[in-house]
């Protein structure tokens, strides 16, 4: 038999002025199971809590109903009080008679009547409450960072700094990501390599950081605090442990006509290569698609010149499996492919380049050693046209609906750098809007316009046509002047939209995290939890979550690290006990619940059941991982048999509340 205590709070006059608290306590005292019903000035005060605790002990209460302010305010207070008096904290229910009663009603009679109904509803619910215990789940003190760009490096460094082991998985032969390809950064115009490469070195030298370069995540199992990840180390045909990075092999390799990815294919590299001088790890990699030894078995030069004996043409992909407590996704971005943009003649004319290609063209380590020359004839360009929003803010199928965010600023940077170095070069920028929110951003842009006389023209470029004399005709409209323009350009630079890396979507599936329609990872809450995914233990760093510039990326990387550290600091995680659970005897194993679970908390097991007639039957049944379940209840409605229920908000509890209200 239930022994329920009801405690009605006056909240000074906040409640008592419009609700006859004595009448409420009196009326609720007659509800079935209620053995004590009291009112008090301030229930949340020390002495109010004392009242509750004493009643729990003296009356041997099995349930407590507090009629007071919103549970959002003091539910925890009263739960703790109950716990300290020896009552399971989940046997406490709050009737919200302040925010949802006394504060919104003026008439004492009707407000009192409503307060009684709300109290009665809480009593009806508490009758069905069950003691709930929070589960503890241990945390593996190691983090995985997926992606070794600036975001991944920063996150890894911060986590290592806090004293935790961290692994970076990078799909390319070196870490560094997009930032390594960038020449200068806005708005300070300092050299990207100068600030990035020390961090790369720091990461490689930090004894808590393990870098798995040329590797991919192959499989993810488990849940927050205890993920098991399978990492595929792709064969690079060079023994990482032996290679000294001397580079002799790359010099001697006879196959030198391989498009160089690092320079955006603007020059060539050898079949065995180190992406760039500051690569980390500085280890050579053989490209099996071009290596003559691999293709025809005739060569073997690299093997001959390697004094370390690191070359291994027979190397295979290997897999390692590792446990992690937290996973940070930092898969970054890529400029979109411009194959569909025939109007800009990107595929037709080598002097129409993307901004990232321009970065390489201007970089001292780039194909031209830092002198800006036209890719077609290596001549000095006198007129350069920049086209903004190529594929960004697009309604059509070709482009992306969002703003890529970084293009306005890097274009101002490019324009400024060109005007600085080549004052005889005229620079035109065609834009829809110039967006410069950010510290010193607008000043930076204005410098480009005012100090460097870059021609900013609001308008769209309609058509880019390569001409027979090697020049490029840029046909555009000037919206402010209201006229059509033809610019005789030497080069055209397209600010291509950026998109998440292609590896992001299969990864999201493995991680059971969510993505938006553009394949950016979705944060758990756009304002309050911007660096966490909705899946516990998975954090988001950098542009994989949305377009970002370097300062924002680094900030988010550190924030994601902080969140991961917060998790790794714990020895175990206390789970919310109000989670779903499946009654295996009723479960059909139909998978409906699994499909609506946003957290991947539901798995299926084949289980043997002893039937009432003593036969046995193996059935597929759902099993909820309470450490992963967040308690939304989506599964409970998806389940046709009612096998799935939610602790703390069970079907019977909610129906009891409905009954009590409608009575």
């Amino acid at each position, binding site marked *: 038999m239930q022994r329920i205590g009801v405690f009605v709070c006056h909240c000074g006059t906040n409640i008592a002025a419009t609700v006859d608290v004595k009448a409420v306590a009196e009326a609720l005292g007659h509800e079935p199971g209620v053995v004590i019903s009291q009112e008090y000035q301030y229930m949340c005060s020390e002495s109010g809590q004392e009242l509750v605790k004493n009643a729990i002990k003296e009356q041997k209460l099995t349930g407590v109903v507090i009629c007071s302010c919103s549970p959002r305010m003091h539910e925890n207070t009263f739960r703790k009080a109950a716990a300290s008096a020896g009552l399971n904290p989940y046997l406490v229910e709050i009737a919200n008679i302040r925010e949802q009663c006394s504060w919104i009603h003026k008439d004492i009679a009707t407000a009192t009547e409503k307060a009684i109904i709300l109290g009665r509803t809480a009593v009806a619910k508490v009758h069905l409450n069950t003691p709930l215990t929070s589960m503890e789940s241990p945390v593996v003190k190691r983090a995985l960072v997926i992606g070794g760009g600036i975001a991944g490096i920063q996150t890894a460094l911060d986590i290592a700094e806090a004293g935790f082991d961290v692994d970076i998985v990078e799909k390319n032969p070196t870490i560094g990501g997009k930032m390594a390809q960038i020449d200068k950064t806005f708005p300070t115009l300092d050299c990207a390599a100068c600030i990035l490469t020390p961090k790369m070195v720091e990461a490689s030298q930090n004894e808590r950081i393990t870098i798995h370069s040329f590797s991919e995540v192959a499989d993810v199992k488990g849940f927050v605090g205890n993920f098991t990840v399978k990492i595929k180390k792709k064969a690079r045909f060079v023994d990482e442990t032996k290679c000294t990075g001397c580079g002799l092999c790359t010099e001697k390799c006879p196959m030198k006509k391989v498009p160089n990815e690092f320079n955006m294919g603007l020059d060539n590299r050898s079949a065995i290569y180190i992406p760039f001088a500051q690569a980390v790890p500085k280890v050579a990699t053989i490209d099996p698609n071009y290596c003559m030894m691999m293709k025809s078995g005739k060569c073997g030069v690299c093997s001959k010149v390697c004094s370390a004996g690191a070359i291994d043409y027979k190397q295979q992909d290997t897999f390692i499996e590792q446990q992690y407590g937290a996973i940070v996704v930092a898969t970054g971005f890529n400029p979109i492919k411009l194959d569909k943009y025939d109007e800009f003649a990107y595929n037709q004319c080598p002097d129409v380049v993307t901004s990232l290609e321009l970065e390489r063209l201007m970089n001292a380590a780039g194909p031209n050693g830092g002198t800006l020359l036209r890719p077609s004839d290596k001549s000095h360009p006198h007129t350069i046209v920049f086209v903004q929003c190529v594929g960004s803010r697009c309604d059509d199928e070709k482009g992306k609906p969002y703003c890529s965010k970084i293009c306005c600023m890097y274009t101002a940077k490019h324009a400024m750098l060109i005007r600085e170095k080549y004052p005889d070069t005229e620079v035109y920028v065609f834009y829809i809007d110039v967006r410069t929110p950010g510290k010193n951003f607008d000043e930076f842009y204005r410098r480009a316009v005012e100090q460097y006389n870059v021609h900013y023209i609001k308008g769209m470029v309609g058509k880019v046509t390569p001409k027979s004399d090697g020049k490029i005709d840029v046909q555009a409209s000037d919206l402010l002047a209201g006229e059509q323009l033809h610019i005789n350009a030497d080069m055209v630079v397209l600010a291509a939209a950026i998109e998440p890396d292609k590896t992001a979507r299969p990864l999201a599936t493995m991680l059971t995290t969510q993505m938006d329609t553009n394949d950016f990872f979705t944060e758990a809450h756009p304002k309050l939890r911007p660096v966490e995914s909705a899946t516990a233990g998975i954090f988001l760093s950098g542009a994989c979550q949305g377009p970002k510039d370097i300062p924002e990326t680094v900030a988010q990387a550190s924030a994601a690290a902080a969140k991961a550290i917060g998790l790794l600091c714990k020895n175990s995680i206390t789970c919310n006990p109000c989670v779903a659970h499946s009654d295996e005897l009723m479960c059909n194993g139909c998978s409906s619940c699994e499909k609506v679970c946003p957290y991947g908390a539901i798995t299926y097991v084949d289980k043997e059941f002893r*039937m009432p007639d003593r036969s046995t039957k193996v059935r597929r049944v759902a099993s909820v991982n309470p450490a992963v379940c967040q308690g939304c209840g989506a599964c409970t409605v998806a389940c046709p048999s009612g096998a799935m229920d939610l602790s703390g908000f069970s079907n019977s509890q909610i129906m009891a509340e409905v009954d009590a209200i*409608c*009575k």
Partner: protein
Amino acid sequence: MQKISKSRLYELFDAVAAKQDLYIPTDREEGAAEYKKYESGMKLTKELNTVRSAKDFFFPQTENLAEFRLEGKNIEVKDIREECDDFVIFGVRACDAKSFTILDKVFLCEPVDSFYKNRRDHGTVITMACTRPAETCFCKTFGIDPTVPGGDVSCFDDGENIFFLANTEKGEKFVESISAFLEDGDTDKLMEVQTRAREIMGKLPLANLSTGNFGGDKLNEYFNSDKWAELSEACIGCGTCTFVCPTCQCYDIKDFNTGHGIKRFRCWDSCMYSDFTKMAHGNPRLTQLERFRQRFMHKLVYFPANNDGEFGCVGCGRCLAKCPISMNIVKVMKALEAK
């Protein structure tokens, strides 16, 4: 015998309905008849029988038994029993009329079911002789002559007239009450109709079905028959057979919380259901085979064992027509007999 011309029948109905509730079988839709409270203009069905049996009049699908209220620690019980008004059912077939005597054995033996008795006392059953039996009819198997139906009053149709014959005191009272409409009539044509109907009865596909191999003493012979597995294999465990059956009489008692009190009611239950007679320890019949066997053993063995050889079936054929998978007592009897 006293008769009324069919052309005046509805006049008679109007007069009867003016005094008490009269129920007649009428078409709900093409091919489906049901008993409905008579109102002027309503027509008798041409169907042989109603989809639901006539047992509903005495043993309705749900029925409130009591009400009580909880107030603190007090329970206040309210007796809701009250005398029902007199009513008349017209057009009951011989099989359904026979089913009442079977239900009587269950509900009127000690302790008497006062709810059933109340309705039985106040209801007058007027039967109608069959002239056009269906292929699913096998009442003859259970010793019923559908051309001479039972009930308080038996009616016979010779094509032009309806003849009334009182069988009970209640019946006599009823015939008396409508005497103004009746006149003496010549039964020659009626005899002809009856003879023809009996001839057809003899030619029905199930005419030779017999209960000879069944009865109260056959428990050991059939209970462990390996036929049950095959027979029950396709049974989907619904309650169609039970609920259209005029003799099935099992019910469950439940409480319903209205929010301002508890209503205790009974409702039909089916031994085909997995939660039938579910008790604290579970269900005594765990498999559909056991549940299926229960229903037919009850009708063919257990019921006669406890009721002087009376079988729990009247051969109305409703289950033959309505079972979703066409499994029925006839197939069961034939299979068990085949050995």
